[in-house]
């Protein structure tokens, strides 16, 4: 019993409390910052049309949809400033945009991802109904980057080791992996709760509605069914590969296959982008770190 406990504890400490080089985390941070810039650009252009004083969802409608003052809805904790300043969507989108650029550069240390996270939350809490698929993952990435965000872009070069491995870098990367696992498991279980993901109808319906890159005519129903089953099977494979380190190379390709099927059916480029960024952390890319030159 004691040996099992000792082994488990050793494994736990090695998994979470061992220092790592921040190069990989810097890649994730730069990718997340780019996605955040695109996200805030769309909010800068269209945020007021949705959430402004005369938007599609004004403050009154927004408060109703979050269950304002209804017990158990948690509306008390919806802290968006846009409830009180509905005409400041441009301000928060602009602030998020600048903070995203700072996050890419790695300047401002932990403050930049914190501001990005704050601006993402400001829009999310104002209208959770309008949340799209990439936002929860992007918000999670930014929250984890507040703990540690790698090193600045000025010192980041592929092939250059900073020489300052940190426990917090490993901790953040592990958190991202666990979050991704929960996300895929949740996505898979929700799909399997619907019969259309079992009988192959889901892919066919999505192609019929021209939501993605693929639009199928009658007679190609079999392809819709193949895509439906591919989406399910790739998620099962991703979850399995995550648990087997020897299969990580396969998990990476399964993730790309999942992305490809998603683009054919849904064409959600932002979701695809954020999944690629998360995949840097989940299936680590190899950043060559040369040995220091030997002194002759």
């Amino acid at each position: 019993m004691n040996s099992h406990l000792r082994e488990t504890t050793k494994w736990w400490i090695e998994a979470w409390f061992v220092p790592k080089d921040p190069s990989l985390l810097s890649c994730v941070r730069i990718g997340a910052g780019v996605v955040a810039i695109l996200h805030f650009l769309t909010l800068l252009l269209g945020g007021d049309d949705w959430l402004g004083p005369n938007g599609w969802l004004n403050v009154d409608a927004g408060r109703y949809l979050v269950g304002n003052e209804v017990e158990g809805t948690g509306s008390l904790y919806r802290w968006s400033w846009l409830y009180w300043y509905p005409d400041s969507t441009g301000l928060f989108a602009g602030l998020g945009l600048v903070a995203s650029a700072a996050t890419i550069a790695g300047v401002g240390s932990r403050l930049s991802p914190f501001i990005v996270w704050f601006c993402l939350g400001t829009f999310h809490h104002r209208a959770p109904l309008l949340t799209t698929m990439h936002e929860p993952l992007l918000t999670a990435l930014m929250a984890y980057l507040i703990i540690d965000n790698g090193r600045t872009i000025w010192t980041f070069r592929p092939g250059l080791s900073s020489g300052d491995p940190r426990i917090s870098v490993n901790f953040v990367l592990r958190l991202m992996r666990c979050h991704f696992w929960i996300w895929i498991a949740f996505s898979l279980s929700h799909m399997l709760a619907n019969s259309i993901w079992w009988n192959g109808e889901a892919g066919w319906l999505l192609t019929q509605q021209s939501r993605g890159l693929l639009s199928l005519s009658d007679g190609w129903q079999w392809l819709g069914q193949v895509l439906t089953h591919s989406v399910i099977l790739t998620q099962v494979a991703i979850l399995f590969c995550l648990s087997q380190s020897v299969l990580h190379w396969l998990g990476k390709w399964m993730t790309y296959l999942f992305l490809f099927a998603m683009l054919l059916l849904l064409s959600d480029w932002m979701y695809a982008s954020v999944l690629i960024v998360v995949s840097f952390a989940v299936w680590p890319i190899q950043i060559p770190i040369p040995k220091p030159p030997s002194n002759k």
Partner: protein
Amino acid sequence: MRHSVSAIFDSSVSKIIRQQQSVPPSLTSWRWQILISFLLMLHLFSVAISYSANWRRSSIQDAAIVWLQPYLIGANWYQEMLPIEWISENNRPGSIQLLVEHEAGHNHWVPTLDSDNSNNEKRKFDRLLHVLSELAIGEDSQGLTRILKSIVLHLEAGGSGNASRISKIRLLKRSESNLSKEADSVLYEAALARFPSGEFGFIPKIDSHRSVRAHETVQVNQ
């Protein structure tokens, strides 16, 4: 027991880390590791509860969500009604349409929001239309009229390029075949009643598909 845990956590792994990587001793002390591990598991458990309780949930999940709300919602981990399943049996896109009739329109219905129309924010409009249809089917007249009022105010302010006043509004669920207009069902239809104060309310039309009682005129405060 305390000594055995201490011994395990303060094992050779931590010592090696501390000695070779110059890590501050505070981060590798067993007390810190236990505390961080506990918070970490609590966090991952909360996220898993939040995601798994999306749309459908048990009473236990609901109680856990409510208890964890300050952290989940306050720290932005809680995502309600997330369309993670892409498409479901009850949420097939492209079947809801919102039409308005302008005061100068002479009984001409203008399609204003349509799930079938492609635009940059199609998914947001999809979700808005499906929430409207859920409210209409669920006979939530208060919620329905609040959102419809917001939409009318947006349209009358010129939000879709035409700033003329609206006299009627209709929410339509179209037949899946799209072949016959007779097969479409009206989820909600109402005429706008203007008040001298400048506010307006909705007078629902009486028909077999009405979702709001005929005598009910809902006035929403601005």
